[in-house]
């Protein structure tokens, strides 16, 4: 168990600072397109669980991965709770414990390898030329990886992979 309360752990991290302002009105859930569609996701409930120190349930559950990042909740929150950012912060924490959905792992792999979501293939370059589009400009992959190394992203990512396997 952590020695500090989960709420403190969240609000000390970049992106999580506003969590304690929540007074549980539910405007977020009422504004959420995912909550309207599925009972697997309820942002008010995630914040409540976090405030009540349910670290395990929040970080290891499925719910934090179901936010569509539309920012409607954050836009409307009367308390200025930056809910979408808090969800990112919770995902950051979950990934630090080795819980990374496959989709995000693939995304990170592509980014480290090519500096892009999807690498540009020779075939694609040919297609672009046929459409009269200019050739793609290069990405300085060495610089991108230096940034990843300076932020701890590379280390974080290899650690989360290591723990899973």
């Amino acid at each position: 168990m952590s020695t500090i309360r989960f709420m403190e752990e969240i609000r000390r991290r970049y992106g999580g600072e506003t969590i304690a302002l929540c007074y549980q009105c539910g405007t977020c859930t009422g504004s959420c397109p995912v909550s309207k569609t599925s009972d697997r996701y309820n942002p008010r409930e995630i914040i409540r669980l976090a405030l009540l120190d349910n670290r395990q349930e929040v970080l290891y559950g499925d719910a934090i991965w179901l936010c569509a990042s539309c920012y409607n909740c954050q836009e409307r929150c009367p308390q200025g709770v930056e809910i979408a950012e808090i969800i990112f912060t919770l995902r950051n924490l979950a990934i630090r414990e080795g819980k990374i959905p496959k989709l995000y792992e693939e995304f990170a792999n592509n980014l480290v390898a090519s500096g892009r979501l999807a690498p540009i293939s020779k075939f694609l370059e040919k297609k672009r030329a046929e459409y009269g589009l200019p050739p793609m400009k290069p990405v300085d992959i060495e610089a991108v990886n230096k940034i990843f190394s300076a932020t701890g992203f590379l280390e974080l990512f290899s650690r989360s992979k290591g723990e899973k396997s």
Partner: protein
Amino acid sequence: MKSYALFLGCTIPARQPNYEISARKSLEKLGIELVDLDNMTCCAPPPLRSIDLKTSLALAAYNICLAEEADLDIVTLCTGCFESLAMTNSLLRDNMKLREEINGILSAVGKEFKGVKEVKHYLQVLVNDVGLTRLKREVLKPLDNLKVAAFSGCHLIRPSKYLKFDDPERPRIYDSLIEVLGAKSIWYRNKLRCCGGLLRGYADDIALAIARDKIVNAVSAGAECIATLCPFCFLTLDLGQMLIKSTYKEEYNLPIIHYAELLSLSLGVDPKELALEIHKIKIDKVLEKIGW
């Protein structure tokens, strides 16, 4: 002539030539010079923010630094890229402590964020640099009251505190830009609601249900097409209708068209030049209506 560093992002150059061609052609026709800079990388969208918020700020700031060095403002096409870069620009301009921390990271690659350049979405360039009055004059083929369901996607307008694009609950800019082309921007239910696109690949069932709502609401309001700005919204709603057909056994055939495509067509660009074969839902009915 106003020049911008064109930030293409990852998805548009790889998958949506229809967007890239129409944006380049229409903006250049309107006297906007687009400069392709070396070394622009990923914008640092929500999937990267999900992994590490600070890395996403550093990567977005790195892209902004490239534009600062070239002494150019940035223009984006993808609303996701707009959000990532504009939000970072705003955060690092206002928060010196955060800026120092990110600049500490960027010093590893010899960059420093200065906060001296703007990040704009191309709609802002149309409204502010070209202007609605001139745009109206440039229209050669008015869209003949085509009933358009305007869908800006989330990340053009939210979070408004950082993006400052338009009123987040009653935006008007996008609708004005549609109407100036001679189309009608219609009201439809839950117009500002998300398309669900970012849940694709993690919760496909929920993503598709949300996309279906958007299509149904637009069709029920009599829309002849949905006009998009974001490549993910486009995929989610265009390709999405194929998935709706196989999953829900429902067929809507509602054309999904990027605003840049509508703009190009109204400015007189020949549809044959626009790579329209990319559309899964064919847009022939729309072309016919506007006289192509």
